[in-house]
């Protein structure tokens, strides 16, 4: 196994803070899920998920298709409830406050999301795409918006590629650029958490590598939860990995441990490719 440059920092930190027995710090958790279940009508998609997500870390959620990874992700920023006939039970705490007791609009500002397929607004320019969240959130100060757009595009490592074509259409960019545009768009509203639902699965290896590099940078400022089908990706980018199977959280530990010495047989079978 190679060394993980992005995770070293966290390992050093971990010596000084209390752990939950699995090497995951229990101090300054950004998100804590307590007995979270989500339903589509009568079908239960996830069951009693119990997980804590430390601040400024990258948590990867892996598991076979249909295991509820995306549903759990979408429960965190209350996107799940937008589908007709769905509901969520249990508690999801953001900095100790239950997101289901707050206004969803406020929650989604604090918890940004990047989707599997790049989805820039087709009627808007690159600049307007990034500014959309700000403008529709009530910011109209042009200078402020321009600053935030530049900063967000820089954070998303897209600024140098688009700084001369900000007024061009967002859908004219390549798939990888579009996805970074969507990341910039999410960052522009200054979230604290970034949820990524297989952000690189529609991209080629070079674009994927760029997104992964970006994640290491973003981790310094944001807490990132990433759902991925690609186990190499989970191993490369994340600090902690959660393995979901059939709607349940099977194992959650330091990424290195999950991929080298998982304590549960199902996890081992999955990460070694024996099923899934």
């Amino acid at each position: 196994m190679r060394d993980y440059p992005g995770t070293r920092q966290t390992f050093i930190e971990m010596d000084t803070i209390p752990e939950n027995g699995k090497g995951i710090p229990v101090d300054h958790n950004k998100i804590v899920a307590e007995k979270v279940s989500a339903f589509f009508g009568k079908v239960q998609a996830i069951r009693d998920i119990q997980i804590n997500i430390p601040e400024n870390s990258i948590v990867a959620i892996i598991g076979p298709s249909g295991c509820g990874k995306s549903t759990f992700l979408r429960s965190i920023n209350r996107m799940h409830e937008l589908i007709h006939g769905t509901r969520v039970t249990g508690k999801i705490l953001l900095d100790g406050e239950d997101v289901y007791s707050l206004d969803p609009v406020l929650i989604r500002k604090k918890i940004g999301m990047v989707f599997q397929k790049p989805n820039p607004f087709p009627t808007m320019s690159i600049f307007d795409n990034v500014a959309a969240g700000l403008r529709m959130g009530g910011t109209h100060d042009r200078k402020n918006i321009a600053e935030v757009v530049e900063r967000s595009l820089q954070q998303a490592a897209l600024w140098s590629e688009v700084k001369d074509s900000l007024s061009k259409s967002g859908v004219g960019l390549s798939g990888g650029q579009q996805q970074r545009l969507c990341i910039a768009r999410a960052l522009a509203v200054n979230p604290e958490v970034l949820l990524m639902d297989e952000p690189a699965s529609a991209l080629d290896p070079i674009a994927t590598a760029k997104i992964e590099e970006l994640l290491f940078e973003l981790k310094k400022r944001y807490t990132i939860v990433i759902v991925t089908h690609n186990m190499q990706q989970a191993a490369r980018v994340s600090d902690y990995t959660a393995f979901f199977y059939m709607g349940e959280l099977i194992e959650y530990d330091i990424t290195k441990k999950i991929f080298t010495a998982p304590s549960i047989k199902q996890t081992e079978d999955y990460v070694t490719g024996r099923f899934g």
Partner: protein
Amino acid sequence: MKEPKRLKRMDNYRFHFRKLTSLFMFTLCGVSVLIALVPLILIFYRTVAFGFSAINWDFFTQMPKPVGESGGGLANAIVGTMILVGLGSCMSLPVGIMAGIYLAEYGNNWFGQSVRFLTDVLNGVPSIVTGVVAYTVVVLPMKHFSAYAGGVALGILMIPTITRTTEEILKTVPHSLREAALALGIPRWKTSLQIVLRTAMSGVVTGILLAVARAAGETAPLLFTALNNRFWNTSMNQPMASLTVFIYNYAVSPFDDWIAQAWAGTFVLMTLILLLSLTVRFATRNKFAGNLL
């Protein structure tokens, strides 16, 4: 050796049969298109041929002359049609577009289903019936015919078309765009108006233009609402002239110059709608979304 050869011949036969079927169906489609186009081209040809020759400057600037006098124009009717359609649009655009947004974005319940059904019923109501409705609710209480009544009749006629086309177009906007907007913490109503509606704008505009074109071409709802007026009038409270009612009156008249003016009126009406379509399309186009919907 024999077996593969027989198979090959069989495959060849099937291949030719498929090609022939394809050619047959293609021809069938082509012929259907031609049949559908025949009346359209005939109407267009007759209107241009008869209408264009009857058009002169007076037609746009003069009032209708009394019976027996030749010349004159339909200036009042041209303006009248614009005013009536304008009134109808003022009434139907906000209602129709907002109802369409409601149905597409929030109408997934029994109320939405009922509205959808009633809108379809309203769409199928003969236009003269909307004239009767406007007569009952506007003309009778006011005790006289007026442009308002005509506008109401046209407005009622336009609402279902605009509602349903707006809804159908908004439904074609990918769900991922709504999610993208909502995930940014944009409230739902803003998402509907500024993301979904904006993305589907060109399609919505097409629906509106269809409704406007239909309203501009209606005669029946105006007959006993706006009535007609042989004099210059821009007061909404008075009976108002319209091209369609003039066309109707002149076309069934025994005078050759009136019939010629009816053709000219038809041509002008057609050209006005064409110009309106082009202008609105040009004004509302989005430089990025040209190939979107």
